[in-house]
């Protein structure tokens, strides 16, 4: 009986449901995080003094506050000014903004590492600023930022478990419910931990494949 616990259909279906919620949390947060990260990162390099200051302030706050605090602000704090977000939306918002701030650091570094000759050549060829960023520096910076940004996505997978703390019942939350019902904490969280290990390892493997695929021969590979 004890050994068969994890083959009981209700336990499996509850965990699968939780896993699905986790994936639904992670996927949009990763996409928004990358978009925010590249936007903020580009603004921090190419913006004017005012834009730079605002972007740096954003990064300071969102990297400096613990993610739990940020999630609590979005979920429990916003009703204070009359905005009520469902737990899922608050979680995705919190993950995206926090992840974006961290990613922007790698993106900024990547933009700065693009040789100045590249931007000068683009300007000499009559590229506008936006065109230069989009077609000349971004494709190079993207490849250089990829290892760092990939790491952030792996962090995101792990931190998605914090959604449980603002009552968004994903994989960890389902695990907590199952464990509290059955008193099988060790087994349950071993299985949950294994699922996260599979997710993070798979993500790491996929990101390495992506890096290899995007690699331009003759350019140094980073990371």
């Amino acid at each position, binding site marked *: 009986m004890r050994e068969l616990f994890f083959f009981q259909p209700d336990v499996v279906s509850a965990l699968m449901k939780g896993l699905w919620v986790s994936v639904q949390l992670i996927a949009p947060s990763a996409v928004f995080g990358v978009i925010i990260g590249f936007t903020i990162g580009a603004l921090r390099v190419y913006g004017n003094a005012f834009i730079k200051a605002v972007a740096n302030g954003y990064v300071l706050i969102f990297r400096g506050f613990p993610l739990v605090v940020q999630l609590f602000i979005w979920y429990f704090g916003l009703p204070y000014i009359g905005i009520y977000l469902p737990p899922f939306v608050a979680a995705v918002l919190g993950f995206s903004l926090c992840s974006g701030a961290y990613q922007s650091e790698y993106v900024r570094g990547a933009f700065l590492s693009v040789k100045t000759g590249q931007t000068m050549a683009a300007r000499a060829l009559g590229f506008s600023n936006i065109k230069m960023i989009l077609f000349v520096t971004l494709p190079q910076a993207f490849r250089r930022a990829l290892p760092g940004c990939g790491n952030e996505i792996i962090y995101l997978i*792990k931190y998605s478990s914090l959604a449980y703390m603002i009552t968004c019942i994903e994989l960890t939350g389902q695990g907590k419910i199952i464990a509290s019902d059955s008193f099988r904490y060790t087994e349950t969280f071993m299985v949950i931990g294994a699922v996260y290990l599979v997710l993070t390892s798979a993500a790491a493997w996929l990101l390495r494949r992506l890096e290899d695929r995007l690699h331009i021969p003759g350019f140094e590979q980073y990371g």
Partner: protein
Amino acid sequence: MAESLVILYGALPYLLRGSLVTIAVVAGAMMIGVVVGISLAVGQVYGGKWLRRMIAVYVWFFRGVPLLVLLFLFYFGLFSLLHINLSAFTVSVIVLGLISAAYQSQIFRGAIMSLPEGQLKAARALGMSDRKAIPLIILPQALRLSIPGWSNEYSIVLKDSAVAYALGVMEMMARAHFVASRTYEHLPLYFAAGVMFLILTYLGTKGLRILEEKVRIPGYSS
């Protein structure tokens, strides 16, 4: 607005006492992290094949599983299964420490590997055993190189310590949430907690930068 400030002011001593709990959790975790992390790093660089493999599994496990899951696993699961009764505070310190050890081992490993190979060779040529050369020659240099990475790790552990709230540890975040639930001043209180974390991050990284300057060997560029 003025009312919020009054409540915030009244809650400040309570929150500050929470910051002491946060500092205690972080200090304990970092200490475990250093001791275990250095051992893992030395094992991973100089150990045999099996030791290296086991350490790699340790690092993979503690870097791949979320903190919250590990907290639940250790607090409700493993420790009670072994009939070890530990407070939520102690378990948080241990779990944060074991995770940090996995990350710190990679910082130390990188530092050890970045040292010129001649250092260990010279120590051996002088008749030192590896057991002597590693703590006396390699680590004093590697630890100095590790301080910037270590300072990063400090700010991560500091922020992660807020998750200990899930086990009921009365650190800053937990206290902010408690006061908020009683006074309904959620936004100002969470913001205050966040700012306090920012201040602790700033103070810690500043202190480590001073330490880095202090222990620098003059004329020895790295």
